[in-house]
């Protein structure tokens, strides 16, 4: 699928999805039901947002997909086999004692790749996120936006097939967030990974994704799935277009419905 063909809201084609969640529930040890009976399919190469109020279990869904926490009921299918994963946390989650380069190279180091090779790859990734000149900087010497870029570079360094992002830009100012939104879309277009993006921002979910899964809270469940049909490039023109406003209104209404549900 070419990156600009953003009408992937078309019911995912005949090909099997990358991952399918079937009746997935999660109850924590303290009895809280975080997610209940969730069905969700994510097609290979698609960009899906999970949108919902805090406490709707969207981060839990992401963690279950990542295998960081097992579902208490239901199952998660990988019809095409388990893909390589990348995970971007809410915080940059960098090791403060390591330079940006070594932070990016961490997944490769854990996979015991030789030093020269992993540094070369990490350097390429830093270039890709526009931080080529900061390879030797320590996290505390970087701004919040730059740290998040390092975090994204680290998630991409293993060339993941599935990139999971847990409200990665929530703590950033709006200007930085817009820029990182654009960077993320560009990377998605270039590298063709599948993206699952958790957010509580209607505007961000519409701007970025092909499909928005709106979740309701207590217990966390799927409320609505909305395609984002917007042909053409996603850029500043799109951000200020009537189409975008209309889509945001639709998603916003769905979210209100989810809050009332």
């Amino acid at each position: 699928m070419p990156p600009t063909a953003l009408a992937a809201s078309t019911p995912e084609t005949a090909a099997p999805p990358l991952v399918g969640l079937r009746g997935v529930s999660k109850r924590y040890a303290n009895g809280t039901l975080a997610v209940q009976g969730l069905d969700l399919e994510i097609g290979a190469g698609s960009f899906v947002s999970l949108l919902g109020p805090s406490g709707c279990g969207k981060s839990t869904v992401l963690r279950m997909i990542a295998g960081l926490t097992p579902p208490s009921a239901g199952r998660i299918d990988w019809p095409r086999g388990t893909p390589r994963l990348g995970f971007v946390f809410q915080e940059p989650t960098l090791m403060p004692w390591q330079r940006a380069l070594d932070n990016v190279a961490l997944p490769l180091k854990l996979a015991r790749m030789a030093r020269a090779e992993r540094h070369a790859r990490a350097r390429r990734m830093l270039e890709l996120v526009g931080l080529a000149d900061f390879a030797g900087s320590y996290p505390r010497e970087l701004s919040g936006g730059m740290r998040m870029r390092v975090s994204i570079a680290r998630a991409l360094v293993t060339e993941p097939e599935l990139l999971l992002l847990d409200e990665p830009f929530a703590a950033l100012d709006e200007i930085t967030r817009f820029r990182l939104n654009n960077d993320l879309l560009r990377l998605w277009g270039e590298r063709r990974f599948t993206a699952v993006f958790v957010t509580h921002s209607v505007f961000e979910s519409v701007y970025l994704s092909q499909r928005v899964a709106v979740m309701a809270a207590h217990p966390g469940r799927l409320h609505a799935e909305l395609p984002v049909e917007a042909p053409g490039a996603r850029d500043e023109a799109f951000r200020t277009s009537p189409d975008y406003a209309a889509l945001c209104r639709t998603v916003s209404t769905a979210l209100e419905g989810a809050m009332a549900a």
Partner: protein
Amino acid sequence: MREGARILGLPLAAWPRILAPLLMATLLLGGWEIAVRHLGLPPYVLPGPVAIGGALAADLPTLASALAVTLRVTALALVAAVTTGVGLSLLFSGSRLMEMTFLPLAVMLQVTPIVAIAPLIIIWVDNVQAALLICAWIVAFFPILSNTTAGLNGTDRNLADLFRLYGASRWQTLWQLRLPWAMPFFLAGLRISGGLSLIGAVVAEFVAGAGGTGSGLAYRILEAGYQLQIPRMFAALALISLAGVVIFLALSLVSHLALRRWHESAVGKEH
């Protein structure tokens, strides 16, 4: 950053940090000397700084060798405290059962005043040096144990998840995540333990009262007390304080060098 004026190679802003304590010390010592002279206090009640300095200069060979003895016990105790403290905290962080079993014992050792246990240890252990070492170690090891344990158990959850996600082995997680993460905690404990091992060594020497050639500063203080050589007593005391300050500064420097690139506590106020 603007390059400010410098005096003797140090930026202007750094001087108050050096001058203020020096000024305070000068005023204190000057006031002390004046008070002693003005009130006509005899040296066996309270000697002035000048008399103490004189005693220090006169007895320097004896006092210096006594200082060396005390510092040797201090250093060995600190090394033992680091080894056992870090070792035990690794054990604790690896097994909750171990922590539940041994932590109360460690707390008991910590809260029981060392002066109360020292006589027992000195009775049980034939070798005086070994007894001193054990006393100093008991006082010094707990801050390292508790701080390092807190650091090892406090690893950032997301980073831990990240390591899990990329299939890190236990060993990789320990070396590349948990130990570096615990480093600032350990170093904070080390700075406390450095001073405590000196205190432990001196207290144990007092209790042991061990004389002879291989005796430390505390014994010199006792001895000078018996002989009513009060200036000498103060001179030995001054050496102990000075040693404590030097230990603290040295360990602070170690901590600063280890953390300066990454930890906020080492950054200062430049940002």
